[in-house]
């Protein structure tokens, strides 16, 4: 990357520069803090959730949150249409939504990176095939195909993650391809090849470390993208299976009452919004810090 190119190979000075950039980047700090807290909430869900997120009480349905005059401290964020504690579902929902985002990005990241790096490194016929596959993928409408497949196969956590993972690899492939192309022509890669390092060794030790920050940036975009797409699938009734509390599913379950009990979709909606916003801010931050000239 340009940064490794323009900076001397002095680790401490690069590190110091990064640290300075991070401090100066408010968006990055806010975003990271939010993402970190959601991660913590997700990991510690069993410890911090006040109730069992699956425990129903049909006699205590749709109790509003505590700030409403009808609410109580027993259910701080109220209860859903089956009398389940909304706060606990929100806390456990963080797990599902993050799992969907990260899972989908992981699958698409692996597919896209392998394809992009191969195309960029080998060029020629491999590049042609990969470019062709990217074009095919881009020309297929994501939402429509995702909906069609989920409708046919039946929605479940695994299906949603897999389908989104199989659909969102294009950006990874495009960026990895061009980064690899750039790096391949760099001196140190040429040197490594000249001294007879095997292809896989060159790829793993020379190419990958230098595309990793790009990878992180794309990953954040796709995590956010997958979370939003799952919410849209859930809205149309084709997301994860209940009783799993994904935030998208919570929005979709609450939407029938949105004109009467707005908090039902506001709470998971705000959670979704904040998480996606934070992930995007973090991604922007990573890009600005590692390669400020690439900001776009």
């Amino acid at each position, binding site marked *: 990357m340009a940064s490794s190119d323009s900076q001397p190979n002095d680790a401490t000075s690069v590190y110091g520069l990064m640290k300075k950039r991070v401090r100066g980047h408010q968006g990055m700090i806010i975003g990271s803090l939010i993402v970190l807290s959601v991660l913590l909430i997700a990991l510690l869900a069993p410890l911090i959730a006040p109730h069992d997120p699956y425990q129903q009480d049909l006699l205590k349905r749709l109790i509003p949150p505590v700030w409403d005059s009808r609410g109580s401290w027993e259910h701080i964020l109220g209860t859903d249409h089956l009398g389940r504690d909304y706060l606990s579902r929100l806390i456990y929902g963080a797990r599902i939504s993050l799992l969907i985002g990260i899972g989908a990005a992981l699958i698409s990241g692996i597919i896209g990176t392998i394809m992009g790096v191969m195309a960029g490194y080998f060029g020629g016929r491999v590049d042609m095939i990969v470019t062709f596959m990217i074009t095919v993928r881009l*020309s297929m*409408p994501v939402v429509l195909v995702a909906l069609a*497949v989920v409708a046919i196969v039946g929605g479940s956590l695994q299906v949603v993650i897999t389908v989104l993972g199989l659909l969102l690899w294009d950006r990874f492939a495009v960026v990895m391809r061009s980064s690899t192309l750039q790096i391949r022509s760099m001196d140190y890669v040429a040197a490594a090849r000249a001294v007879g390092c095997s292809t896989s060794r060159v790829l793993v030790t020379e190419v990958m470390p230098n595309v990793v920050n790009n990878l992180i940036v794309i990953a954040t975009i796709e995590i956010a993208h997958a979370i*939003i797409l799952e919410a849209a699938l859930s809205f149309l009734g084709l997301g994860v299976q209940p009783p799993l509390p994904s935030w998208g599913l919570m*929005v979709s379950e609450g*939407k029938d009452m949105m004109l009467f009990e707005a908090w039902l979709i506001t709470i998971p909606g705000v959670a979704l919004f904040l998480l996606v916003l934070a992930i*995007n801010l973090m991604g*922007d931050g990573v890009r600005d810090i590692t390669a400020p000239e690439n900001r776009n």
Partner: protein
Amino acid sequence: MIYYTIKRLGLALLVALTVSFISFGLLYLSSDPAIAMAGETASDADIEAIRKLYGFDRPILVQYFDWLQRAMGGDLGKSYYFRTDVSSLIGERLPTTMTLGVCAITFAIVLSVPLGVAAAIRPNSLVDRVALFLSVMGQALPSFWFALMLIVFLSVNLRLLPTSGSDTWLHFVMPTVVLGYYAAPAIMRLTRTGMLEVLSTDYIRTARAKGLRPWVVLFKHALRNAIIPVVSLAAVQFGFMLGGSIVVETIFALHGAGFLAWESITRNDLPTVQGLILVFSLFYIVLTFFADLLNAWLDPRIRIN
């Protein structure tokens, strides 16, 4: 240029063919289409009759080539549900979606290009930050939420706009805003980057040094160059929009191709879903084809490569 055009056209055709095969194969993951066609109240006899009538008992490849052959002639088969030609069905619904798409992309451009330019003129200024914030918001705000909120505010409370339908241009205002808002961030960011890049080039510096007025430099020299990639991005975004209008059309009861797609999925109307995926893909393929040609024409380096 002719060689490039032919090569590019061949690629476009190959992509179209691959997409058609994938979309066809995809939908054959399906449960028995005969059941879906017959509907909830159908008897077993109804289902059996339909299975025979539509040839679902044949091998999939046979069905694909049969379909492809007729698709080339513009015959996308008959909708299981409406029992009319899929091509005429899509033809009926497409104008609504196209109107929406054109309005939305126009809205997105009108919103994001000036913002992108303003942000590029003064990087890291307040304008730049606001622009960035708006674009990040655009990525994080779920579209169904935004759509329903607009309805509550503008239709139910203020009575400014009709809630749903497609009878007058007023009906298109809210859907345009919702759909356009999602294309805006990408265009805004690209305009900004392009402008930043162009503004730092030598010929702009030269133009400035010559003492040309700032707005002449900006619009006559810089924007004209920065806008080229934006045009092709807009073309791509337009293609995405057609596919992405499902949620928007469903909420605003616009009977366009997006709504048709969603309804067809829920009723397992395979020929219609296949036809729509194909048509949406073709749109994208054609748009990118022309965008590529445009770029090649503007930038000779591309066509030599």
